[in-house]
């Protein structure tokens, strides 16, 4: 087994890995290698042939492959090496990485810093316990997207979508455009989990019904799916007996959540935040293991590739600086308080952030109107950011400008909460 020494090794050549790689090179890292398990770089963007990418980062509307293509070309120009068709078997806390590939066999890499950019995977039928038989025709929306857009096949002709995450909404429209009969999108919650623009552009514009507070209780069919039992649920998500309805279909697409893919991270000893499912990171996206960084959907499930890029650039810079012994030390914790599912980063060194704006990502637990996001220390509100509305399906981004950052006391933990506008609570 050959051993190779690198400055920065990045796992995953999706938008996160490529963005981090480019920035690391720009910051002066010499040998930067991105490992990719698929046959091509680009990650999941390669199958996202719809538009809507790049509106924030490039101020123009691109398709997924176009967005990925820009970074693939930029990476090549920047001197980032990409090795595809290579699976990482193990990441050691010493930043040694073992891989397996058809072309190169087993390889050992030793890197000054490692960036985890493995993305996320979809929750499955069994994870959400849909009862019934086990026929063919039940797929996650992302897998169906790959079959349709890359492999050139359709799973069926009569489709039910469970879950109103963005992939579910996109795939409902995609199936309709392919001539399938889309019976509807079912969502357990009283609100959708996707971006508002996707509800409008994918469902409303194509007359695809959206059934809120309804779920699929059971699937039917021996060999191939023949239909599903849809059922209404109460506010707590409990099924309401007597509301069952048989919906004929040969295909059930699941868009019921994404899980950051952290098996390698866990085995390496990276500490995981149960709220995000991703590594606990500081403002430079370093994990608890010095020299191991993480960015993109492996840290938190983003709504937009553009945000992944922003986060990956932060990680790329830190990874490049780390090799020069300039790593930041974590000091203050940032906790998600009332009304928030999580905040990223979970840790910060306020002293090191002086003079730089601080970007916080967070997710609301419930949809609310007219709120303010408050930044607190020692139970006192230090900063407040009013927002017209928040919803769980759309990530909240708060940028604390350098001047405002001075309000925060170094050495004291930070709580971020949602408050009603004008009053305390």
């Amino acid at each position: 087994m050959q051993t190779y020494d690198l400055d920065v090794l990045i796992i995953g050549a999706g938008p996160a890995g490529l963005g981090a790689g480019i920035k690391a090179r720009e910051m002066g890292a010499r040998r930067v290698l991105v490992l990719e398990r698929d046959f091509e770089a680009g990650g999941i963007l390669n199958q996202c042939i719809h538009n809507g990418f790049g509106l924030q980062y490039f101020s123009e509307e691109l398709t997924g492959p176009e967005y990925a293509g820009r970074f693939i070309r930029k990476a090549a120009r920047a001197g980032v090496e990409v090795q595809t068709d290579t699976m990482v078997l193990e990441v050691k806390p010493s930043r040694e990485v073992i891989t397996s590939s058809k072309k190169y066999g087993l390889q050992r890499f030793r890197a000054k810093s490692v960036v985890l950019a493995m993305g996320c995977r979809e929750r499955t039928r069994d994870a959400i316990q849909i009862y019934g038989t086990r026929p063919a025709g039940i797929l996650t929306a992302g897998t169906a997207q790959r079959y349709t857009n890359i492999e050139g096949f359709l799973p069926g002709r009569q489709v039910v979508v469970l879950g109103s995450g963005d992939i579910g909404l996109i795939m409902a429209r995609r199936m309709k455009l392919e001539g399938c009969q889309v019976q509807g999108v079912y969502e357990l919650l009283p609100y959708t989990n996707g971006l508002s623009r996707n509800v409008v552009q994918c469902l409303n514009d194509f007359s695809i019904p959206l059934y809120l507070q309804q779920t699929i209780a059971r699937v039917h069919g021996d060999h191939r799916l023949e239909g599903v039992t849809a059922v209404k649920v109460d506010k707590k998500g409990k099924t309401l007996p007597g509301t069952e309805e048989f919906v004929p279909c040969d295909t059930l697409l699941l868009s019921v959540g994404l899980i950051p893919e952290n098996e390698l991270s866990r085995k390496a000893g990276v500490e995981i935040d149960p709220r995000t499912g991703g590594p606990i990171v500081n403002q430079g996206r370093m994990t608890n293991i010095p020299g191991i960084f993480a960015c993109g959907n492996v840290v938190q499930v983003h709504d937009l590739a553009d945000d992944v890029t922003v986060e990956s650039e932060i990680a790329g810079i830190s990874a490049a600086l780390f090799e020069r012994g300039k790593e930041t030390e974590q000091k203050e914790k940032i906790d998600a308080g009332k009304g928030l599912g999580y905040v990223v980063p979970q840790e910060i060194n306020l002293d090191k952030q002086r003079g730089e704006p601080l970007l916080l990502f967070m997710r609301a637990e419930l949809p609310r109107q007219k709120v303010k996001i408050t930044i607190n220390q020692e139970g006192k509100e230090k900063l407040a950011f009013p927002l017209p509305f928040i919803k769980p399906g759309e990530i909240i981004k708060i940028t604390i400008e350098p001047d405002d950052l001075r309000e925060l006391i170094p050495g004291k933990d930070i709580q971020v909460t949602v408050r009603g506008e004008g009053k305390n609570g």
Partner: protein
Amino acid sequence: MQKFDVVIVGGGVVGCAIARELSRYKIKVILVEKENELGCGTSKANTGLIHSGVNVKRDSIKGRLNLEANPLFDKLTSQLNIPFSRNGSLVVAHNRDDRQVLLHSLQEARENGVKGVRWVDRDELLQQEPAINPDTYGAIFAPTGGIICPFEFTLALGQNARENGVVFSLENRARKLLIENGRVAGLETDKGTIKASFVVNAAGIFADQLNAEENNEGIKIKARRGQYLVYDREYPVKIKHTLFPRPTEISKGIIVTPTIHGNLMIGPNAEQVEGKNALETTEEGIEEVLKGAKKLVPGIDNRGIIRMFSGLRAVADSDFVIKPAEKTKGLVLAVGIQSPGLTATPKIGEVVGELLQEIGLKLSAKSDFQPERPSGIKTGEMDYEKRDNLVEKDRDYGQIICRCEGITRGEIRDAILSPLGAVTIDGIKRRTRAASGRCQSGFCGPRLIELLREFAGISPLKATLRGGESRILKFRSKELLLEAGEDIADL
């Protein structure tokens, strides 16, 4: 017309064990199976336990065969080159009453010759299994209890039988026994008539459908359903032994066990179901399983589930029915093989061989019987050096197809090309564990379809989950638009 000495109906673990046993002798044997894979019925969907013999009755056939078969597994699994672990079982007492009953069972197990059984008190039990319900009164410990992959076991028996000359006819439904003058003359199948003087009915749940009038002797096979849950290997609740509650009248109760592949598995409940295809999971059933499992291990919940499934047990009577048919000469029944059927299989094979001999089949041993089945390559079990050397020789073992279980292209290729190879996605899954991990084929599904095309010549539109109408992809992109008469040149 094909001529054989013996036809075995049914390619489950029982049929395959009988096939392997008979392949020791100089006779012509054919096994017919209606599905395109072995082990598609009860054999693929059960708890995968090799029972120690605690809580069995020696005077029943199933009890006796269990006791006799358990010690055979070390040699058998080593010959067949399949993983097997004597992880030990614990039958746990939850109250004084349980303890009383189980102490009696312990005495019985000792009398039955179950090796190494002893009582463990609460402290030792909690030390051995910290996750167990602390509200316990001790347990019977049986070190000979074991775990196995039931599908791999079935396949290995089948492959070894085939290696020794048994003919396997898959996707071939047995239609009707041919009977002449009250004795078996052959079997009519979907693929033609097979002439034979001896037939073994090992058709599992469907055993009573083979010439019901002539030979069932009043036997009716009822399906008893058991539902199961399998957890992610990273699920935080860990146990080492197979945990049983005090058994009930009809079943061993809901069990908590590690699988041979290192997942936590719980189940089964026991439900009498109508029909022979009632393979669904239900809310009530899964809740019952969770409730039962929580009683043994309170930390178990419904997070981390990667698979729910149910299996059917063929129940004819309170016991196995293994005997020559009375009315039809030449027919041997090996039916109603409920729990502990998997454990008993090696002995069932032997017993059926003896019964065939008793009713006139001449058996003389082959000198060239090959009991060893070559082991397949499992890259996950190799250290990096070995693995690197392997990939040097064969690059297919370098490319990982299933990310969750780390299964390579080479291993999947082998599963397709080996004797009685995989022809479906489920077939690949059961042989290699590809697609059985936490993403449940989300990532590797498209690649497996491609490998079925490459190595089995199955076009993607014909690739199935498990045969029949279970096609995964039904149309090409744009096919529906063309069908609807859309002008797709503009799209």
